[in-house]
């Protein structure tokens, strides 16, 4: 996994709540192998809004946000299915940090496994950032994981609250399986006791 320590990039506002994983990555594309690149499927239907052409009202279709690596979204972003393809599509399209009042839980777990930051900010803060991004010429922000800050184009710095485990995994680009295998002996000891206590589960 790519470490994520600091990121200076364009942030795109997405003024929608409850954006679900079917909108992020429609189910009919799940069967595609990752090697084809999932960026082409990101927001595939919602960014066209039923037409074949891209909808210019959809912020991510606008030229000024074309190189965005950050999304500032509405509440409950990534709700719905467990499909990790939704996160692969974001990753393949270059996104590394997401801000919203809340996230779908499975989606947020999937993001962390792929080195994408999900950070919660309250609704008024999200509203203010979105307005700023839409109204100013400069939409570039700085995300700093160590200092837990998001610096806006205006120079204002907003503090983030990251959980220590998330921070540790992102900064070190940690492959969690390697981390967990360090606990191999503890897992084996737990398992032996557990199987003795609840023998019907594994027999």
């Amino acid at each position, binding site marked *: 996994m790519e470490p994520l320590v600091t990121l200076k990039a364009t942030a795109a506002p997405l003024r929608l709540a409850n954006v*679900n994983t079917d909108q992020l990555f429609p189910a009919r594309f799940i069967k595609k192998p990752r090697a084809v690149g999932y960026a082409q499927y990101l927001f595939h239907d919602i960014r066209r809004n*039923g037409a074949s052409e891209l909808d210019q009202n959809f912020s991510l279709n606008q030229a000024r946000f074309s190189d965005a690596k950050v999304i500032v979204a509405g509440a409950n972003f990534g*709700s*719905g299915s467990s499909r990790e393809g939704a996160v692969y599509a974001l990753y393949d399209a270059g996104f590394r940090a997401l801000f919203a009042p809340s996230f779908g839980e499975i989606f947020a777990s999937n993001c962390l496994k792929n080195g994408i930051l999900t950070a919660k900010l309250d609704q008024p803060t999200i509203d203010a950032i979105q307005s700023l991004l839409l109204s100013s010429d400069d939409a570039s922000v700085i995300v700093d994981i160590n200092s837990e800050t998001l610096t806006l184009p205006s120079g204002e710095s907003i503090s983030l609250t990251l959980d220590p485990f998330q921070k540790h995994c992102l900064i070190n680009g940690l492959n969690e399986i390697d981390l967990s295998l360090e606990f191999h002996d503890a897992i084996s000891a737990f398992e032996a006791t557990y199987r003795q206590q609840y023998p019907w589960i594994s027999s």
Partner: protein
Amino acid sequence: MSATLFEKIWTNHVVTDRDDESLIYVDRVLLQENSFHAFDKIRREQRSVRNPAQAFAFSDHYVPTRNRELGLGGITDPEIRNMVELIASDTDAYGIELFGIGHDYQGILHVVGPEYGITQPGLVIAGADSHTSTHGALGAYAFGIGSSEVAHVLATQTLWRSKPRTLQITVTGERQPGVSSKDLILYLIRTIGSGGAVGYAVEYTGDTIEQLSIEARMTVCNMSIEAGARAGLIAPDEKTFDYMRGKPLIPTGSAWDQAMQHWQTLKTDDQATFDRDVRIDATAIVPQVTWGTNPEMVVDVTGTIPDPAKENDLERRARMERALEYMGLQPDQSIQSIPLDRVFIGSCTNSRLEDLRIAARVMDGQTCRLPTMIVPGSEQVKRAAEAEGLHQIFENAGAEWLAPGCSMCVAINGDKLGPGERAASTSNRNFEGRQGQGGRTHLVSPAMAAAAAITGQFDNISNYSEARSWNL
């Protein structure tokens, strides 16, 4: 010290703690065709599968519902066929049991898990599907995970988790005739919102929940994720134990007795408290219908489409307008005046024997006005329904009786709505494009869907004189 049901299961499974996360032991992991990314990761990183016997795989999302007797040969789309073949070769390579086409217990993972005895009280069950919350109906802590976490469980038999907060949802009072557990959970999501339970492990309590059958409880727990909760639990009781007895993986003899001693401790202690409480009065609930593109967009069957102009929150108003445009509906239009095109009865939410029995009672001796697909949740459900002659009732009414799978709930096996087609569906998500690009979904209970098949529109089934005898 007193503890909730969830806390008891959690404590029992903590291997170690680090910062604010715990390494949790996972008893069972459930896989489906879309788990191919997880197997790719295992291969790429040259990992081994720690305990193949604790993994169970299912062919359900991509299997065809027609021409099943042709096996793989019945799948004409090469990409879909590849998915069904991949799960077979991946599970074969790692020695994992597959409930595939032709297996006596093939079916939707959340239907087969309980009926095969994979699901038991007190277990931690992680599944490659968000509706893994279903298994909480038997008192398990069960939740959906993505591919990376599936690979993590396969390699380590554990997962890192921060402990969720606890939410008790207490449902009390006698339901009106025709009001099913589907209506309860739709009403709940309407009440607390589709993000209303994010961050919580939910426990459902109260006399209304206790009164529900195990299958009906599965419908409630299944849609916990539609309220944002990764897991929803119901404490096991005599109904749970009766349900489990005799299932293939359920212990027998002295092992059953030993298990029972443990299972009977799996309930929230009297003195235990939850981080949050929500109370629902079941007596007030009538049959529910979704009108929009999110499971919180729900109204009574006797109601009308809400008017965005009356919504003060601008963001919410915009979402309502967008939903109405997608759904092709007008503000203030009555629910019962919406003309429907198709009916789908199936999915991990509502495809079990009791669901099909109710649908059959509504359709018995009637003729469907709408093209109607009935997809049993598993091979076992299909056989049991056929033994009772339910399939004949459906076929005599003109409905299609199909082979088990997820089918048009997620619309990736070839079963789907066309653009603009409007369906009454017993599934769990009404998202844009969920049942086919441009397709329009109204989520309802099996009885409501069956009535819609007959009348061509939504009917208030609470008024049906026979609804009192449905034993929902």
